[in-house]
């Protein structure tokens, strides 16, 4: 399990964190999920600085990145990732709240790997996350129950 790269979830709304984790849980992914709550924290994690200066966890297998975030917004985080020689290969899935925002991401065209409009119906969201998880993250290992938010 330790050699499996984690999923980095960048999301400010605690409810969306919980729902996303529930969806990921149902996908039965083996990866750990690291949750950070704003863009600055996401960058700290990605660049191993601040409170993540000595992180033991690996670089993420995939970043699930909300578009609208406090401090540093999603597009800026995306830009930093894609500018960094080491990180630019990391797939980034942009989570947007509405179709209008999706247009914003499209026009920005910073090399996002996928985007998901968070649907109102949870089961659609679940399906979307599951598809993405399958595709980007990893393998279907036996159920690792309770991948807790970290830190």
């Amino acid at each position, binding site marked *: 399990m330790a050699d499996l790269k984690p999923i980095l979830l960048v999301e400010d709304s605690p*409810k969306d964190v919980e*729902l996303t984790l529930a969806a990921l849980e149902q996908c039965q992914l083996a990866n750990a999920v690291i949750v950070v709550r704003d863009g600055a924290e996401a960058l700290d994690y990605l660049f191993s600085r601040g409170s993540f200066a000595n992180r033991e966890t690996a670089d993420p297998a995939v970043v699930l990145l909300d578009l609208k975030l406090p401090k540093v917004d999603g597009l800026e985080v995306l830009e930093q990732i894609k500018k960094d020689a080491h990180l630019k290969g990391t797939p980034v899935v942009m989570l947007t*709240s*509405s*179709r209008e*925002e999706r247009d914003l991401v499209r026009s920005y065209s910073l090399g996002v790997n996928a985007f998901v409009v*968070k649907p*109102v119906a*949870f089961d659609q*969201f679940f399906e979307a996350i599951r598809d993405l998880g399958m595709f980007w993250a990893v393998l279907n290992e036996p159920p690792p129950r309770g991948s807790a938010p970290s830190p």
Partner: protein
Amino acid sequence: MTETPAIIADLDLAACEREPIRVPGSIQPHGALFVLDADGVVSKAAIGALAVGVVDDPVGRKLADLLPGDARRAIESLGTGLVAGRGPEHLCFLRTEAGAFHLVAHRSGEDVIVELERATGDEPGSFDAVYPDVRAFLDAVQRTSGIQALADLAAREVRRITGLDRALIYRFDEEWNGEVIAEDNGGRLPVYLDLRWPASDIPAQARELYRLNRLRLIADANYEPAPITPDGAAVDLTYSVLRSVSPVHLEYMRNMETMASMSISLLSGERLWGLISCHHQDPIRVPYHVRAACEFIGQVVSMQIAAHEASALALRRDALRTVQGKLLAHMAAEDHFIDGLLAHPRDLMALTGADGAAVVAGGRCTRLGETPDEPAILSLVEWLSQQDREDVFVADSLAAEWPEGEALKDLGSGVVAISISQIHDSYLIWFRPELVRTVSWGGDPAKRAELGPDGLRLHPRKSFDIWKETVRLRARPWHEAEIDAARELRVAIVDIVLRRAEEMAALSERLAAINKELEAFSYSVSHDLRAPFRHIVGYAQLLKKFEGERLSERGDRYIETIIESAISAGQLVDDLLSYSQMGRSTITPVSIDVAAMVDEARANLTVEGDRHRVDWRIGDLAPVRADPVMVRLVVQNLLENALKFSRDREPAVIEIGSEAKEGDVTTWVRDNGAGFDMAYVDKLFGVFQRLHREEEFEGTGIGLANVKRIVERHGGRVWAQGEPDRGATFFFALPAA
């Protein structure tokens, strides 16, 4: 009346205009002329018959040395005291054995021209002698008012002082024809009062000479000119008192049977206004001091005329300015300034003293008062717009400027037009009707000259009998103040138009700001309003998943309802957003293959709702020119509706067709479903309007509102026909590709 060959008239004009009247090379014989160089040495001279014996062979000698006493001292002290461009100064009275003379001098370039004019007696004559007359004249001037009274007075006084047979006050019109407006006549010469004279009788260079030298005397029409030698043609005699005149003019005088003439120029400001023109049947030399008095009278009359014209102009302007103020107030009171003008035709016409007016704007013509008919006005506007003119077009005779304008003559011989928008060929035009007048000429103005028996030289006409002419195609002339008023109104209109444009710009700036705010608002709605619905659905589904087994059937139904409601609320938010987006996003029209778009929409829809059999009947679909993203929404929406409302039919029949007509393509979608009552057709396309209960057919009530908005933003039209239970047809018309 015989026709005068045009060539003679042309010859006449050309010949007279060319005549070197400033440098005739000779003088009249009642004196002598000397051209002195800077050292006072005579370079050229002319000795007239009445001055023979005063000095002999003066050329090459100092003039001062040749003259006695006072004259010598006066000439020696001339120095550089004389200023060029002014009339002669009187130096002294000179008595010689050959006779008595007035000695006068003026500067001409580097030279000084000294003239000896033979006095009419042995005494110099003094201003004192004429002072009482001049004084009386000045007193009388104080009491007169108006140009006519002034002209009558001047004619009378000048004839009295000079004792000449006839004194005329001759006034130029704008084309330099002259008219005798006042006359004092001793009875020996014919009366010319009210007669007109063609401009060619006093050609341009003669008028210019009159403007510079205010008094001219021809003592004897039969005189023998005394040549200036050597090289007399090089001496400019503009300011000379003895200047010899054109032989054509002398012949003209003989034809008029006047042997002597004197004219005094009347100026209004710098412009030659007219002449005090005096004639005598016999040769006569008007004494120097009398001429000086006449010149003075001429100056007084000139000043009075200038003052009178200025005050008349000011009065007229004041009156027009009052009208203009009213018009501006009318214009400001209306949303569109033209309405302000049209609502007050009386003021509009008073502004220029017109009998009719027309406003032509945006191809629309509005006529007020007495005007030519609309097609005539529109053709005038077309002609005007092709002319490279100043802001104001003025014609007293439209036909003279534009031959086709003759058709407008009855009510529009006189025209003043201002352009009020260069972009749209908009004009404000005033009209005056034709004024047929009879003009009396002093002789046939067409027969200005005749060829003499020699067949070469030109001779002025011999007949000065009254020749009546009927003047047509002309209106009462527009006054300078009226033209200015029109010009000022144009400036005011242009100001208003500009101000409106600025207001529009400010408004659209504000609109843009509001639009931006709206965008920010809908962004925030999309983000913040959507999230709670998502959370409700998410948690309810989690609850159902993990705790569902413990819920009663009723609890289970409650959860289902919560989920459904939250989903439809979320859908509502999405639909509202897309509706507002339709209103804001820019349209990029391209040619659209509607048939392909219908196929695509059908494919999308049948995957989802493949629950019942549908009989699609798709006809020829003409391409349209529109924004493809938006039209896809329209097609999708109408097909979705057709499927939805016909889903309980077996089979459902959906027919799609189109018809192209007059540049538009009308496309329709017909179903055999639930239909609707035409009584509610107006509600069909409104936001949140539903014609069916929700449990029958789901939906947010925004779909058709969106369709309507999209089509109308393309300048198209949507409409529908239906009958309950017998299906519905939706039509939309868009520009053809």
